[in-house]
């Protein structure tokens, strides 16, 4: 039944590309199925519902029917040939999943939105731009299908005779790894991106004609190529601050140097620059942070850490190797359960661990002496952006007078200012939300999920500086409020 409806309800307007039409058709199909399911469910529930509910359910039902009728009419009017096209207004909604830097629409405060929810009973997905802070958010994993299509489109465009840039295989591979979540974490994504860019530079050096070029022209050519490749990465998942900072560093260091004569020289300079960045800002910085942070852990400490962070793991294992006796509380949260990896590594080392879920943090905090977290980025107003959940851990720790240490390399410092966690955040997909659940529970959850419920799985949150005692960077320990000074000093050095 739903299939039939879907075919009829394909939205229609002239003058669009077939790819977009395909996208739109799929979307319409989903929507129709969704509506039908909802109507059916609500009809079934109707008998048991109370007085108030009854009214709303019928309203929703009516809406579904209206929608279907409207689609049917439109279909008849335009004919089958036009059904491949896309409504212009629909485009931003369909695209919003994959583009990161689309201008943010005015957002209502989350508080106001919550207030509306119980009375209106609409899902987040149904809300208009103005009311829904999640519309513009990147949705992880949902866009893999779109990515394949966009790669195909690029390939087709290449056949046009004139020379057009194409996505480098290394970048292509990394893009899909990032989109799939195989490569995650601010540090890893940056390192892998730089490695891929090195390959890109290498190939640029060997394929371009070796004849003399104007240095500026040459580097411009390379950077336009790089930008094109980075744009693909951005499509896979919005770039992290670490990545944008690394890219900016590479560009800045190149613009000073204009002595290169040919492409291979340019390539080797770029590779040297990237290697220097990897060595100084990432590898050595990491080592310095471990060195500083380990002096803060003493015998008898109980260290709490959250999910998985490679730098925290490094610190804890180094401390253990040096013979310090301490125990660790690993806090974990659904759906990613990254803490299990931490737990595995620490237990293999023989460190005494406790494993709790995030809802028992307030209980376990009584016995904790230090909280050790890592950050995705530090914002200019001193806020710490990190994996969702870090904020509440810091808050509880602050309330219980437990010092919170945040480890972050200075290359991840951002000059941006955020005041809430909606801007620049990402959403997890339903598939991700249901991962790590037994089949039985998964099914239970799927069937009980009514259409008015949508899963909101935010990726990052921000912690105000009040809750963070100290930030450990490779340049020493600072309070959160010193981020702008460090940025200023960094700029002076560059």
């Amino acid at each position, binding site marked *: 039944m739903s299939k039939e409806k879907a075919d009829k309800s394909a939205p229609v307007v002239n003058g669009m590309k077939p790819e977009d039409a395909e996208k739109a058709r799929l979307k319409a199909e989903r929507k129709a199925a969704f509506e039908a399911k909802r109507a059916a469910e609500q009809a079934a529930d109707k008998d048991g519902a109370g007085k108030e509910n009854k009214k709303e359910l019928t309203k929703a039902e009516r809406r579904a029917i209206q929608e279907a009728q409207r689609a049917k009419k439109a279909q008849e009017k335009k004919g089958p040939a036009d059904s491949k096209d896309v409504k212009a207004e629909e485009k931003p909604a369909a695209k919003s999943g994959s583009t990161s830097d689309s201008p943010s629409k005015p957002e209502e405060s989350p508080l106001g939105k919550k207030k509306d929810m119980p009375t209106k009973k609409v899902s987040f997905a149904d809300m208009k731009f103005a009311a829904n802070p999640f519309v513009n958010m990147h949705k992880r994993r949902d866009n893999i299908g779109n990515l394949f299509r966009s790669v195909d489109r690029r390939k087709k465009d290449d056949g046009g005779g004139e020379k057009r840039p194409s996505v480098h295989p290394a970048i292509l591979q990394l893009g899909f790894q990032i989109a799939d979540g195989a490569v995650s974490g601010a540090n890893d994504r940056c390192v892998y991106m730089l490695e891929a860019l090195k390959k890109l530079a290498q190939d640029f050096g060997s394929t371009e004609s070796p004849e003399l070029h104007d240095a500026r022209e040459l580097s411009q050519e390379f950077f336009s190529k790089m930008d094109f490749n980075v744009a693909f990465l951005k499509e896979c998942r919005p770039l992290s601050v670490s990545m944008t900072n690394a890219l900016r560093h590479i560009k800045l260091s190149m613009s000073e140097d204009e002595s290169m004569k040919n492409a291979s020289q340019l390539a080797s300079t770029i590779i040297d620059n990237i290697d220097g960045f990897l060595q100084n800002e990432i590898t050595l910085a990491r080592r310095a942070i471990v060195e500083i942070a380990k002096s803060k852990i003493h015998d008898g400490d109980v260290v709490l850490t959250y999910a998985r962070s490679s730098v925290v793991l490094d610190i804890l294992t180094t401390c253990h190797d040096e013979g310090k006796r301490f125990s660790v509380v690993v806090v974990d949260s659904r759906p990613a359960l990254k803490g299990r990896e931490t737990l595995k590594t620490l237990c293999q080392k023989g460190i005494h661990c406790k494993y709790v879920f995030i809802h028992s943090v307030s209980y376990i905090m009584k016995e904790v002496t230090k909280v050790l977290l890592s950050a995705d980025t530090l914002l200019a107003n001193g806020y710490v952006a990190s994996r969702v959940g870090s904020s509440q851990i810091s808050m509880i720790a602050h309330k219980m007078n437990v010092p919170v240490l945040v480890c972050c390399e200075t290359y991840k410092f951002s000059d941006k200012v955020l005041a809430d966690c909606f801007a620049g955040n990402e959403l997890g997909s339903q598939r991700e939300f249901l991962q790590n659940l037994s089949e039985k529970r998964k099914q239970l959850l799927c069937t009980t999920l009514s259409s008015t419920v949508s899963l909101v799985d935010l990726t990052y949150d921000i912690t105000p500086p009040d809750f963070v005692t100290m930030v450990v960077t490779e340049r*020493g320990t600072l309070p959160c409020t*010193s981020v702008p000074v460090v940025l200023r*000093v960094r700029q002076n050095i560059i």
Partner: protein
Amino acid sequence: MVVDYAQQLERKCQEEPDLAPIVPAIRILLSCLRDSDFGSIQELQTSLNNVSESLMTSSCATIGVESACELFKRYITLTRLDVDLNQLKPALVSRGESFLRKISSDRHKVAKLAAHFILNGHRILVHSRSRVVRDALLEAAKRSNFTVYITESAPDQSGAQMAKELSTVAGIECHVLKDAAVGYFMERIDLVLLGAEGIVESGGIINRIGTFQIAVCARQLNKPVYVLAESVKCIRFFPLSQRDLKSLPNAEKDGHPCVDYTSPDFIRLLITDLGTLTPSAVSDELIKLYL
């Protein structure tokens, strides 16, 4: 060798009780710089490190001495070092001398700045004895009349000494309180002036034991807490708890702690020779000094 410098420092502190141990410590470092015959900068740095380490073993060394030695070593080498060694030594010595001149005048600068905060009729709570707070009060006494409440500060009763100095020199009205009576008097206090042995990276201070409870009490009753200290006392140290202070020189005596850490949440302003700073600005200054 080790005993030598430490004893020298103690002797100098006794000779000039009006000076903070920082100034004689720098004098000793400077004389070592003059006397030493170094073949390389590396050699000089090692020898200066040895001297400052032995100074820290002295019984009158404070955390301020440590920070001053660090800053001295940094300051003298903040010059062009690519000249040959014969010319280098006088350059280093002259920089060392200018550093000494600077820190000798710092206390006066702070006192002048802080005096503006003290108005006619103020009732001021002061903890223990602090040279810079004393100077600020004496400076302010030239223009206004105010009352000072001084904690007795067990075990060495240095508060009584402070009261004596203030009342004999400038005739300021002083009351010496028992340490435990701080809460009782806090409601009638207008502002709290504190000295500091060291200013740490968080913007908090390390000071004589009892400071923390005064700051907590003042915060609860919404009384402003001003810290008076020379910038040379800024140190790259970030305590997370009171227990972290055990590593500092002379932090404990007979099993009792001698200093405590007051976190920046309890401090309204720090008045230093660099100007009047908020606690968060301290780490900015430290970054500028060390990065």
